[in-house]
């Protein structure tokens, strides 16, 4: 099994952070969970444990960025995008301050802690902030690139990571481009546009559907903002049906962004949304939660067939 995304994040942060003395890392007393502690061990003078004070932490990070630093702000995704939102908006977004908001335990991945700790609205919240870029990596290789890219690009960003391991999608050394989605499997009957763990799940769904004679294209839309609108339009045109798949509410996240692009394209292909319905979940084993709430490969396959039928 591949490494947990959070471990990859911590190691990449330490690896690239050691090379750039302007990188500073802040955490709100969960560095052992987010794995920012790996950086803290490597560069203790540039690591700041701010205590359980997410708003103050984010504001402090923005002040550091205003004075030339590249701050990575760490806590659970649900907290960094709610308690950290005011400084992210007032400083990061409005003043174009390059704060890197890092949401650990994205989606349902903090499974057993339950709905208070699940992050299912974070992408929707963060993509409405002007100037913010939003990334949701789908595997270890991409997580590493996202960290490296965040150091190199002086934009405010929201980076959403998972607690869990995701199946490998890419080979080590693969590089990516902001605003460019990636076709990870060709197909002609429909396209699943996913991010995070749902890319791997979509690939599984594609294998199953192939047995039924359905050819499914899978797009990894790891960069939700800026969105690759051209790719959305191209997939709609070439495959005639679009299905978004995300570990997030079906409202306002990747699905919302793709729907906006699809509507604007005027192509008029039917679209289906795979994600958390407009509700909260519960605690339980991660894989069982994904299954129960319609976020696994089977749910994607079902939605693909339903959407193709509406062509």
């Amino acid at each position, binding site marked *: 099994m591949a490494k947990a995304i959070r471990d990859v994040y911590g190691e990449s942060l330490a690896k690239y952070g050691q090379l750039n003395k302007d990188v*500073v890392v802040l955490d709100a007393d969960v560095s052992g969970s987010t794995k920012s502690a790996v950086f803290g061990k490597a560069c203790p003078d540039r690591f700041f444990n701010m205590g359980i004070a997410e*708003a103050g932490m984010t504001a402090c990070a923005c*002040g550091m960025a205003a004075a030339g*630093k590249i701050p990575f702000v760490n806590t659970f995704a649900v907290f960094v995008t709610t308690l950290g939102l005011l400084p992210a908006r007032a400083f990061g977004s409005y003043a174009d301050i390059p704060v890197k908001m890092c949401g650990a335990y994205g989606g349902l991945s903090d499974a057993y802690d339950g709905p208070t700790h699940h992050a299912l609205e974070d992408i929707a919240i963060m993509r409405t902030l002007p100037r913010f870029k939003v990334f949701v990596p789908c595997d270890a290789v991409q997580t590493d690139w996202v960290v490296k890219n965040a150091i190199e690009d002086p934009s405010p960003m929201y980076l959403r990571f998972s607690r869990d391991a995701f199946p490998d999608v890419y080979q080590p050394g693969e590089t990516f481009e902001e605003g460019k989605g990636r076709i990870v499997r060709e197909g002609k009957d429909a396209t699943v546009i996913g991010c995070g763990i749902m890319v791997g799940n979509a690939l599984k769904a594609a294998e199953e559907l192939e047995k039924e004679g359905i050819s499914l294209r899978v797009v990894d839309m790891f960069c939700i903002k800026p969105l690759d609108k051209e790719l959305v339009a191209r997939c709609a045109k070439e495959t005639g049906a679009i299905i978004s798949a995300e570990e997030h509410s079906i409202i306002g996240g990747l699905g919302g962004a793709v729907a906006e692009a699809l509507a604007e394209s005027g192509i008029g292909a039917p679209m289906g949304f795979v994600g958390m319905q407009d509700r909260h979940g519960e605690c339980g084993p991660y894989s069982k939660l994904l299954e129960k709430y319609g976020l696994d490969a089977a749910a994607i396959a079902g939605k693909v067939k339903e959407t193709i039928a509406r062509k």
Partner: protein
Amino acid sequence: MKLPVEEKARLEKLCHQFRIDLIETLHQRQTGHPGGSLSVLEILTTLYFTQMDVDPANPKKPDRDRLVLGKGHAAPALYRVLAEKGFFPVEEMATLRCLDSRLQGHPNPLDTPGVEITSGPLGIGLSAALGMALAMKLDGLDKRVYCVLGDGEINEGTIWEGLMAAVKFKADNLCAILDWNGVQLDGVTEDIMPMHNIPERFASFGWHVIQCDGHDIEALYEALETAKTVKGVPTIILAHTVKGKGVSFMEGKNAWHGKAIDDASYEQAMKELGGVL
């Protein structure tokens, strides 16, 4: 260290002129916050004219002192002082809060030269100032960060997060100044949210506390000079001020927190201040 008598007199005269100019601008624009702008004038003037190393010709020079106006609604006062320093022409004050103006309702660094960071959403400025102070320490810069707080603003829980963190990280290059005018938007601070024993509260969080008359430039100067000598902990100067200072009918009145100045009030204020109508 003493402030030279002539310098004190010059700055007092300047503050008096600023009061006249602010009444003029706020009356002309019919929007903006008079009360808190008038209470913070001596604080900002003393900081920018006796303490801070800033260069209007090179506002982004790395080795500079920085100021965060936590109580961002006092933007008119900050803008007037920045204009006097030469960051932009004083005439630009007439565009305050206008469309296409560089002088937004609340400060934003992308618009206004000399503004370090956004402010207006209360409570987050102190932590931002702390972040600047810590970054400057990492860079080995022997410069200071000043954060001007409102006394209503300290209702915000995030202020207390910043207070704790500044002590933990020994940010002795950070100096907060509380514009302690005792009045916030809805009424007097002791009614809206009693903050009993303000000096003790800050001291108990580990800050070095200095109190002074926030309209006495010499007292402010001495407090700021003392603050520079305090090592290992951050300092807060509790500056006793009067909301609406200098205009009799505005003094201590929450109604003038953010009210547009009508013609009769404008004339009365200018008469009191000796301004030209």
